[in-house]
């Protein structure tokens, strides 16, 4: 099964990947999870490899967070299913830069 998932990226990653819109729509095969979304995103935009997850461990970079449906999913297992509304494209999967700085 293929899902059309909306992904929202922070400004600096959109600039890096030459994405002009605030959201991209990614085709995700199989269960919609953090891992499957990020795998599909990186396959479409290889310059994002290493900028959201570490290269080899695939650990989320510490200053980025994953939100959806008004929930912080950053600490959920990467293979846990995401809410149906994300899989259905009704709600975006949000990749957020943690606030920092003066």
């Amino acid at each position: 099964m293929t899902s059309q998932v909306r992904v929202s990226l922070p400004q600096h990653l959109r600039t890096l990947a030459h994405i002009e819109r605030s959201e991209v729509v990614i085709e995700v095969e199989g269960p919609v999870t953090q891992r499957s979304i990020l795998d599909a995103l990186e396959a479409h935009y290889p310059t994002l490899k290493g900028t959201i997850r570490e290269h080899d461990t695939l650990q989320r970079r510490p200053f980025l967070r994953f939100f959806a449906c008004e929930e912080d999913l950053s600490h959920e297992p990467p293979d846990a299913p995401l809410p149906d509304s994300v899989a259905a494209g009704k709600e975006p999967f949000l990749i957020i830069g943690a606030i920092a700085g003066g």
Partner: protein
Amino acid sequence: MSKARVLVGTKKGAFILTADGKRENWEVSGPHFAGWEVYHMKGSPVNPERLYASQTSSWSGQVLQCSDDGGKTWYAPGGGIQKSPQGWPMGESNRFVYDTSPETGAPLTTHQFYDGTQHPWEFKRVWHLEPSLTDAETVYAGIEDAAIFRSTDGAHSWQELSGLRGHGTGPKWQPGAGGMCLHTIILDPSDPDRIYIAISAAGAFRTDDGGKTWKPINKGLVSPYLPKQEAEVGHCVHHIAMNPSKPGTLFMQKHWHVMRSDDAGDNWQKISGNLPTDFGFVIDIHSHEPETIYVVPIKSDAEHYPLDGKLQVFRSRTGGNEWEALTNGLPQANCYVNILRDAMAVDKLDDCGIYFGTTGGQVYASTDSGDTWKPIVRDLPAVLSIEVQTLS
């Protein structure tokens, strides 16, 4: 007519400043990579239109950027040559993997950490990019945690020169307050197999076989913050400079102390002389006068700003020990900026231009060997690095 192109890396993007040979009127382009820290940019001596940039952020890590038109347009290496069927850039130019292969020595996997324990090497960022003197596609990267990498395919892929970490002293290397960074790479124009590097806080090292093996070159350095003040390694070297016309002579700004070596780093002598303070970060050499050197004294390791709020470049025309303050055009009151280790450069025009950038966002230039200065741009984000290209 000749031109100067100044490459400015800042805390929030890159800027490129260009002027004709008179260097009176400057055009400013940028910010490139807005919002990202640009630790360093440098152009290839072989093809000056090929620029390399280290773009990094605490949020999203390391990205390498290239330009083939002198900084007008940029691409993450891979994107310039190889594209996906959909036309998206390919490649993983930001992947720096420490070498642990048995074939190349399986070098050390720990270094000394702040608390004195041993800590594994972890890639943080690229501090310095040094393009090859002979091949525009070859570039070296100095990284944190300290190691040197090389790319021979235009920064598409990177391989560690692991003999440096394999030298055997790695467990004694330790991070300074800014991290354990390899910040200086100098390629010897007279010997393609000779490379110098410097690490905070490990010291200076040299290879004479193209990077296979390395040795510490810290004899003569004295560091009061080490249990053994003249230790083989552990010194916080801030920067090293070499004039290509005199490659056996090196000048060093250490944490404290300004030093010189006339035997390719085998022995160092202190040349602080009459400097009002010999703490500092930058050091550079006049393009046409290999015994004329420049430093910017900083008050102390606790107070990273000029003495008495007066920004002064000090010049020695005698290769050290005898220094004169250069103040004309520089703020002489209430100036509390810092000048970071890679933020000074010289051009090769007949009247050698000297440039430096401050953490207050000013880039100062002199076109008369330092006698007078003026800000060529003054409200940028904090300047991390300066390089200059002399273009015909």
